[in-house]
């Protein structure tokens, strides 16, 4: 029987498949580097798919039930935060486009901010689920979560403003959904704005990006280069695009063509149809995911699902807004599409967790039907997420 989890995972898999093709196309160069890179991408995509399957079979409530330092949540937070701090240490982080966001461990390079992003989603959901009764109170309800969120935003924001804004937005939305009062959160808007302004002033390249967004044609070879080349790629697509592989922009004109600006290449090569396919897949994930959240009967599962969906949806919208030059250029990847193997794996795993909510619900329904069949009254109503690892 086709369940929401299947549709959700199918949409995610479709995006991953498109990602392999588009990253391959975007990496095309004169001379070329052969198939080695593509093989790596295929391996990452397969790993991401496996991660999604694993995620969909986890009992999220059981996994995050443990308290103290044995809780995987605490370990996740500690590891991701320390790694994020590590990128700030000179010599440790790999600098790309003037921002030090990458860590290299062996053959794998990844952005710790990605880990922080997902850790915070889980942490916020966990806190709200545990403190559901007192979330309307400021001091013992909202404040501890808010401090953690602020810490995350600060650590990530030092190098990656876009991701930290995303973390702040998703974190705040999960807190509201989890029972926090809107006016309590409002108190933190003025200092947040002040911090934002301060960070922009501290890092001049951000100011440049803002300026480039306001009028890219003032300096088309400098700060305006990115948005102009990105818009150019989009304009060249038309309804059906130039055809897969036939884009010109990827040949040195559009920087970050396989990562942050891959959507421009999709528009150029697959046209409006390609853009509709990608956006359609995200919309399927969002609406199907919302349906899963609605039927989920566990507070932690609901909030976790919501956080994951909002992260994917907002990040995708933000990335496309950057590509179409509607907001200033910032280093935000298109979820499941932009090249960067670890990003695919983590995002796919997170969507797998959303799917696991539906799997748990299905088990619960099955269990109830089974007990109905055996005429045995249900002693306990198993809640979503209580299914054991299958």
């Amino acid at each position: 029987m086709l369940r929401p989890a299947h549709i959700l995972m199918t949409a995610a898999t479709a995006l991953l498949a498109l990602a392999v093709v588009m990253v391959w196309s975007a990496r095309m160069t004169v001379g070329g580097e052969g198939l080695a890179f593509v093989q790596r991408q295929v391996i990452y995509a397969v790993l991401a798919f496996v991660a999604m399957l694993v995620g969909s079979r986890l009992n999220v409530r059981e996994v995050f039930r443990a308290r103290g330092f044995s809780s995987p949540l605490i370990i996740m937070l500690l590891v991701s935060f320390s790694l994020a701090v590590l990128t700030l240490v000179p010599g440790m982080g790999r600098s790309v486009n003037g921002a030090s966001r990458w860590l290299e461990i062996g053959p794998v390079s990844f952005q710790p901010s990605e880990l922080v992003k997902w850790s915070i989603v889980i942490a916020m959901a966990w806190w709200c689920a545990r403190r559901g009764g007192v979330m309307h109170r400021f001091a013992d309800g909202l404040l501890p979560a808010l401090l953690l969120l602020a810490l995350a935003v600060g650590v990530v924001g030092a190098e990656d403003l876009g991701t930290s804004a995303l973390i702040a937005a998703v974190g705040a939305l999960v807190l509201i959904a989890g029972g926090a009062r809107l006016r309590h959160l409002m108190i933190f808007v003025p200092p947040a704005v002040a911090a934002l302004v301060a960070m922009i002033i501290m890092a001049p390249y951000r100011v440049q990006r803002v300026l480039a967004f306001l009028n890219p044609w003032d300096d088309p070879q400098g700060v305006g280069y990115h948005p102009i080349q990105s818009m150019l790629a989009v304009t060249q697509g038309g309804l059906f695009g130039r055809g897969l592989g036939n884009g010109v922009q990827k040949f040195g004109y559009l920087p970050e063509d396989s990562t942050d600006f891959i959507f421009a290449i999709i528009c150029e090569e697959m046209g409006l149809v390609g853009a509709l396919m990608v956006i359609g897949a995200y919309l399927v994930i969002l609406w199907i995911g919302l349906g899963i959240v609605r039927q989920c009967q566990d507070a932690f599962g609901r909030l976790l699902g919501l956080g994951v969906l909002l992260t994917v949806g907002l990040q995708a919208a933000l990335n496309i807004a950057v590509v179409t030059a509607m907001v200033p250029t910032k280093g935000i990847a298109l979820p499941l599409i932009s090249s960067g193997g670890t990003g695919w794996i983590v995002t796919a795993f997170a969507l797998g967790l959303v799917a696991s909510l539906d799997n748990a619900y299905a088990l619960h329904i099955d269990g109830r039907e089974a007990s109905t069949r055996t005429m045995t009254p249900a002693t306990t109503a198993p809640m979503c997420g209580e299914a054991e690892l299958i």
Partner: protein
Amino acid sequence: MLADLKPAQPTADARRVLKVGRFMVIGISVLFAVLLGRIVQLQLAPDPRLETRVDSQHSSATLSARRGALVDRHGRMLAVSRMAYRLFLDPKMIGDRNTFSERVGYELGYDPVDVEMIMSQKPGNRYISIDQRLSEDKLARFRELKLPGVYVDPYVVRDYPYGQLAGQLIGFVGREGKGLDGLERELDPVLSGAPGRIVYARDAGGRALWIEADNYQPQHDGRPLRLSIDAMIQSIAERELAGAVEQYQAKAGQMIVMNPWTGEILAMANYPAFDPNDFSRAKPEDWRNRAVTDVFEPGSIFKPFIWSMATQLQAANPSEMIDTTTSGVWRSSKGRSLRDARGHGRIDWDHVLIESSNIGMAIVGQRLGAEKLHNIVRGFGFGQMTGSGLPGEISGVVHPLPKWTHYSVTSIPMGQELSVTPLQITRAFCAIAADGMLVHPTIYATDHRPEGQRVLTANIAAHTREVLGRAVSEGTGRKAQSDLYSLFGKTGTAQLPNFVSGGYYQDRYVSSFICGGPLEAPQLVVGCFIHEPDPSVGHYGGTVAAPAASRVIEQSLVYLGAPTSAAPEQLVQAAIHLDD
């Protein structure tokens, strides 16, 4: 919606999550719709400045058309284009400076000292040419070598495989591939073709990606042209011409071989020769094809045209006896004094031509009168372009009738008071050979006989040939006799007119001879014109030009396989002679 949210109740948190979720998912969906609208907007109405960016992603290149070859009537390459490779150095790319010149020298066969010198002469230059035309084996060596700093640059060159053969006729091509002289220049529009054009996408580094499908305009290669020239006959003509000019220490000479029936020019030789492969080293005056660009006063060689027409117009009867005086001096009715080389006495009209009597021609010229003479001269095509289409051709000078004086009726019949080009007079002679049909000379090979213009009846033409045959066998052209073929021809020894003081130079001549053969069925006409031979060696046309012309026609007829009239034992002799 968010503002309605009440503080969470344990029972209500599911609803709260769903509210926030719905609100955000709807919000993100709306955002996606807006972004899609933005994509459509960018595609339908892009900033016009973006268009200029698109242009900069494309480059165009000219596809040079291959220049058509010039081939002789049998397809032998007279002028052909091919790719040549220029070897050049880029000092910036050189790896090991110390061993570089030795390496290049050793591997490719250049003197390392020369290489060093050329490099030191142009410091900072990144394109130092060390060989303009790399030979095949050096190119192969270069390809094996793969030495950084040494490169080749392909370009199109024009080759003239036969060197100086028909050099002035063919002309030459400049460095940019444009025909600068001769047929190369005249036929440039046909030969050069039309260059093509491609527009190709390029990457940010300027490297070509692909050709845009609707922007490929292939080049149209130039058409090869088959000339009427026969390289074999041309080489015979050039060899014999050079021999005659050098033997008589003359200044210049031209030799023309024509097919009298088609007007095809089979050979057109000039001396001094010039090699189009190396045109810049020759004197510009040697580039000229003087067979059509220069004129001379023909003299006696002109007599057959007047003679034949006078016969046809019955101004003189072939058996009529004409008194050419025994003294060799005659005074015209207008008081002009004329001379023959010697007194011939009373001779018949045929012998007037055989002995080339000026006096006899003048007497009949007076009978014809100015108007008829003028018509005869024009009728044979003098004073007009021949229609050969050869570059630089001029029409020669025939004065219009009103400008004629009482001298003219005696001067014109012996080839004075007019000037002709070698091609004009050779062509006119073709009419006698071709049963009276005057054709336009042509430089293109033709497979059919063009419609000529009748100037003589076939009978008169045949009779003129017979008389001219006697001029060769017993008259002024005896030195043109061939063992293999009966020829007919006319000599000419014209003094050069002195344009400064009037009159003629006493010691400067144009010695000429035109002949056709075989007498029984003419196939070829050869005109030989030797300018200013050394009079101490010889100056009569019969001496200077006739033997060369005779050898050319004889060898050419043998080459063409014309049946000989010679007896078998003569043939053996001739074969021995040819072997020499």
